[in-house]
């Protein structure tokens, strides 16, 4: 590949593909976190029936490959863009993992925290949002960051149903610039940089914020 071609390839990938990839990551992350935090909180309460339903949801998402869920949604839903179908599948699966992580976080919070909040008369919802949930979020930082990295990596399956993300854009360049080794290497590097940044950020958060507030 000449430098000129290389420049064109990278430009196409970054200008046309990256925005879609970032949108996929942003939307999936938002919904997955929302699902994870809300349902994880509900799951920690162990409400009969509801808990069994959520358990089944977690089981399905952990047991079935994301790709088969994605292909099913793509074939089943005749409406909706590839983008939203991908976001639906990815946030459903990753949300289930995050739900389990959040639930685990709740289990690690000392019962005394609830009792102390009760003893000074704080309302239940306020206790959750101001006292317990923040502690949960601090405790789960390492696991959650790991899962976010999985989510970022997982967004590239959207390309397989034709979502115009960075991977799909790159594939469309292949007939014209037939250097698959190099072009796929770029994609690998792009994802590596994003994921490694997130891993680094997670460690940084752990060392600074988490350590400062709740100690080791």
């Amino acid at each position, binding site marked *: 590949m000449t430098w000129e071609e290389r420049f064109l390839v990278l430009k196409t990938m970054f200008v046309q593909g990256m925005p879609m990839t970032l949108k996929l990551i942003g939307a999936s992350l938002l919904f997955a976190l929302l699902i994870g935090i809300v349902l994880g909180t509900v799951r920690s309460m162990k409400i009969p029936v509801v808990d069994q339903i959520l358990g089944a949801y977690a*089981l*399905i998402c*952990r*047991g*079935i*490959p994301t*790709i*088969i*869920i994605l*292909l*099913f949604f793509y*074939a*089943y839903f005749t409406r909706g863009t590839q983008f939203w179908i991908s976001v639906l599948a990815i946030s459903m699966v990753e949300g289930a993992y995050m739900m389990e992580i959040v639930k685990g976080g709740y289990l690690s919070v000392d019962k005394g925290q609830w009792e102390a909040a009760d003893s000074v008369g704080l309302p239940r919802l306020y206790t959750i949002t101001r006292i317990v949930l923040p502690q949960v979020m601090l405790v789960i930082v390492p696991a959650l960051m790991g899962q976010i*990295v999985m989510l970022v*990596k*997982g967004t*590239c*399956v959207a*390309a*397989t149903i034709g979502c115009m993300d960075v*991977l799909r854009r790159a*594939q469309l360049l*292949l007939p014209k610039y037939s250097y*698959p*080794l*190099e072009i*796929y*290497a770029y*994609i*690998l590097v792009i*994802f*590596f940089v994003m*994921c*490694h940044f997130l*891993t680094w950020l997670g460690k940084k958060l752990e060392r600074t914020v988490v350590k400062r507030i709740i100690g080791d």
Partner: protein
Amino acid sequence: MNFGVIIKYWPRLWSGLQLTLLYSAIAIVLAIVWGVLIGAISYRKPPVIGQITRAYVCFFRETPLLVQLYFLFYGVSRYISVPAGFIGVLALVLNDGAFIAEIVRGGLQSLDPGQREAALSLGFNEFQTMIYFLIPQAWKKVLDSLINMMSIIIKDTSMLMWITICELNYQCNQVNIYSFDPISAYMFGAAVYLALFLIVQGVRRLIKVRSNRIDKRLNMKTNKEEVLNV
């Protein structure tokens, strides 16, 4: 769900399932061997090789399997002709092996350093110490995570359809294309993957219960000893 569709395309689905099981089995065995090897190396941190393994583990854990598959299949096999099956197994082993390596390294690091020192002091060399003492001890600690990795590898084989391997996921996709019945086609696939997942989790639980029981028995013994000492 329409069972007629399943029956009609059964040969297709069955061959897909066989391939999925085959690739899963090969990838699981090789990924564990590879992961233990890399994990042991990154635990000992020899110069240069240690850095290389660390870079490898880091890179393969933080890039998508799908792109790794494409890279190896469309990129590498352009220059060296290798069958898709080989590339598929290679990618699974490199990817999931990196995760296993991290698990194994974590297990080794959690061991009491006195174990290694004791073995070395008895005249075992580094390699023997690793094989006879450290890995067997770490194995018990990481077994649970390793079994979990098995279900992940089984799920990961579903990505092989994108490099022309006709495994279960591919066949389900084909059935959908022929029958226009996404529910039957994909639900069948989903149910099979879920069943495989449940089998692996069942084995995991069985092993957990058994090791718990053994631990309990050992604990009871020590308790008894304590009582006798008092």
